[in-house]
């Protein structure tokens, strides 16, 4: 037998062994799923950050110990593909029992929620049994045990008037700094509190780089991280303008009013507040590494933890990862924005934006196709109870979502600051896909190394209005689609009899109010857009 033959046999043998192992794994898994004594609950999320998976694993094992015959499986799917994965899983009927809802899933339409998720309204009105020994939370309805009263999307759908998710955390954004480097550069112990101090710190960093010959940048930027800083600056400049555009007198930010305000000529790129915002974006953009717009979240994080940049703007979700990777001491401060007494920018500002409206996050929705609905609800109750959420916050280092759960010391600076004013708007309005694309396509003209406000305006101006109109048209269409889909639920509640059924009456009342509001809003948008043609 020659060597070639032997090697072929070895190859074939290896292939055979691999096949047998794979077949065995598939078979044993299928057998497990058929096992009547074993219930497998699967939950999926996109939080690949340090500590979260381990925390969920720990909670899952704890739950399994107290619930024999139950196995909890965690699926961590990268955020980059989560949107596509989520939709295909739902449509294909292979979705896990619980799926994280929010940014990673993209726009959650009424249709998607209503068709593929189970409303949990009936459960959230009851106390969470796992809170039985938790003092003040013991008898409270489950929804009231959350810091935001479960009143925000995606946990609650104002349009469908149903609860769809249970949260585990909360998210805010801060500026991380390399405390060792900060000490070397600034020689101070306190991070900047005003915008002027912030700029001065960045200038000192530039000077330090030149003097010491070290490749240190003031800010680690990327297309993911930069907006947390530059958008916040722009939004601070449009605080007063937002209130001026507030057609509906809600004293807050309404994207449709801002968009219509632009189309009506109430503001444009030459509006002083807008120009001021662009100037700030341009100034701070120059402090980030050249070409940062082509970089992603991981790249910016890499720069920062390698000590190549002094500052990084990111959310509370990155806290554990940064702590784990950085070989230096980390500090955190709130992004300093120009104050009302600023000589140039003060006239546009109301004050630091309030974070009181920060909704709870890391929300899990129960899929309609789940065969373990009761188990899923019970597991959600377990992880979102006061003891469960305390364990979660302690182990993951993330913010808690439940009343009375203390944040750990490291994450405490991320707790929402409730004192503050209504935020202004940014050019890439939230929920406006085409507008965001146009702004993003021209952002290099503003924050690139040779960028300027004039160049950005020249690039974005011709397409911005059309992009806003296109998004408003889509919003009107989706609004009508949502209104249309309510007819069946309304009829069902009507047939249940409003006179004798208080629940049906309340539901009908909320649904008809939502439907009428959606229709009038959509028609108003169409009317305004038609008049612009």
């Amino acid at each position, binding site marked *: 037998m020659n060597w070639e033959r032997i090697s072929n046999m070895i190859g074939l043998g290896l292939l055979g062994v691999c096949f047998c192992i794979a077949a065995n794994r598939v078979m044993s898994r299928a057998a497990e799923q058929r096992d009547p004594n074993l219930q497998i609950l699967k939950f999926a999320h996109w939080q690949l950050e340090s500590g979260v998976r381990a925390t969920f694993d720990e909670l899952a094992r704890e739950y399994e110990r107290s619930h024999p015959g139950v196995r909890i499986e965690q699926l961590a799917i990268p955020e980059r593909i989560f*949107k*596509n994965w989520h*939709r295909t899983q*739902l*449509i294909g009927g292979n979705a896990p029992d619980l799926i994280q809802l929010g940014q990673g899933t*993209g*726009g959650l*339409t009424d*249709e*998607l929620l209503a*068709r*593929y998720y189970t409303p949990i309204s009936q459960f959230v009105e009851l106390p969470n049994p796992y809170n039985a020994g938790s003092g003040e939370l013991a008898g409270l309805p489950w929804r009231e045990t959350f810091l935001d009263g479960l009143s925000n999307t995606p946990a609650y759908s104002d349009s469908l008037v149903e609860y769809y998710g249970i949260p585990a955390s909360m998210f805010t954004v801060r500026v991380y700094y390399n405390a060792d480097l900060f000490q070397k550069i600034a020689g101070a112990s306190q991070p900047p509190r005003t915008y002027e101090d912030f700029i001065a710190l960045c200038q000192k960093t530039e000077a330090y780089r030149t003097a010491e010959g070290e490749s240190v940048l003031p800010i680690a930027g990327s*297309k993911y991280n930069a907006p947390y800083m530059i958008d916040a600056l722009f939004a601070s400049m449009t605080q007063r303008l937002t209130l001026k555009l507030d057609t509906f007198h809600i004293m807050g930010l309404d994207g449709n009013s801002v968009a219509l305000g632009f189309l009506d000529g109430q503001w444009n790129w030459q509006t002083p507040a807008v120009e001021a915002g662009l100037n700030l974006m341009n100034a701070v953009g120059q402090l980030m*590494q*050249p*070409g*940062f*717009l*082509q*970089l992603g979240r991981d*790249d910016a994080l890499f*720069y920062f933890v390698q000590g190549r940049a002094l500052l990084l703007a990111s959310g509370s979700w990155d806290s554990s990862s940064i702590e784990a990777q950085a070989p230096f001491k980390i500090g955190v401060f709130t992004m300093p924005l120009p104050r009302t007494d600023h000589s140039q920018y003060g006239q546009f500002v109301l004050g630091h934006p309030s974070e009181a409206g920060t909704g709870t996050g890391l929300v899990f929705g129960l899929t309609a196709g789940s065969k373990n609905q009761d188990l899923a609800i019970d597991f959600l109750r377990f992880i979102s109870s006061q003891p469960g959420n305390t364990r979660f916050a302690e182990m993951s280092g993330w913010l808690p979502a439940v009343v009375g759960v203390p944040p750990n010391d490291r994450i405490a600076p991320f707790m929402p600051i409730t004192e503050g004013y209504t935020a202004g708007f940014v050019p890439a309005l939230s929920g406006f*896909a*085409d507008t*965001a*694309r146009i702004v*993003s*396509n*021209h*952002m*290099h003209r503003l924050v*690139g*190394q*040779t960028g300027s406000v004039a160049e950005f305006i020249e*690039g974005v101006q011709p397409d911005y209005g059309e992009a806003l109109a296109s998004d408003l048209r*889509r919003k009107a*269409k*989706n609004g009508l*689609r949502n209104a249309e*889909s309510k007819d069946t639920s309304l009829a069902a509640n009507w047939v249940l009899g409003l006179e004798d059924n208080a629940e049906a009456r309340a539901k009908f009342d909320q649904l008809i109010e939502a439907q009428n509001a959606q229709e009038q809003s959509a028609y108003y948008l169409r009317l305004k857009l038609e008049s612009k043609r």
Partner: protein
Amino acid sequence: MAIRVSNPKALHEWRLYLFLLPSFLLIGTFSYFPALSAIYHSFFDWQGGDSRKFIGLDNFRRIATDKVLWGSFLTIAILVIANIVKMIPSIVMAVMVHRLKSDRWQYWYRVLLVVPMIVPGLVTLFIWKFFFDPNMGVLNRVLDVTGLKSLLVALDAHLFHWGVFLPDVPIAWLSQPDLIIPALILWGFPWIGAVGVLIYLAGLQSIGVEVYEAAELDGAGPFQRFLHIELPLITTQIRLSLVLLVIGTLQGFGLQLLLLGEGGGAGGRGMVPGLWMFNRAFVAGEFGYACAIGMVLFVFILVLTLINNKYVRVDK
């Protein structure tokens, strides 16, 4: 030429056709069904869920005035032409490997070509993304070290006035609109595709030794041998590669999505039809419209394939 077989003869061992059934079933399920479903849904206002409203040709009417889509065809046309040019290194490589005297070395070169195929495509994309990093990327390092950066800066300043290569500013390959298409073209350098080389090699190996001997007697040099023997005799393979390349380039958008994001990058210069289709479906939630874009793309690919088959002739 195909041989005609009578029906009774063809059906004599009819059971053998059953062996084709699994293949047909798989192709039908995973290739034809999605395609037919896309055709069907292109006539609907559909958000990707269960509910959909029949709107006839509205999606196609909208396509007629979609500036982004038609603009993206210009980008893809440039990339198709560039990719056709990028076939040359693979052909040259195949000829070089084929001409190696030692069978052993030929074998090892083939192995070396195949090894990178084991690396998942996504990893290759990430590596290239890192290559293009303005501050830490290999590409800018190479340009700096070799002095090519200074040459580019000088050419920019004094001759072409592109305004993209500046002294002391790292080149932002993927966030500078004018550099996006060059960067996409540069991607994959030195453009030696393993599959392409193997296909050409298969063609080259079918050329008989006597042909080379005759050429040698006629005094044909290496280049003439390539031009008059090898190139004509691998035209079938080149045509196949060309069809696959055109289809792949027109359909593909993974490279643009990963390097530039859902919006096509700075100035939208990296927007290609496939990416726009993805953008409409997963960013705007307009799945019906995305299907209609897919249909237009299908027609383009079909027309280009027909043109290719008609005009890229194989003379045996």
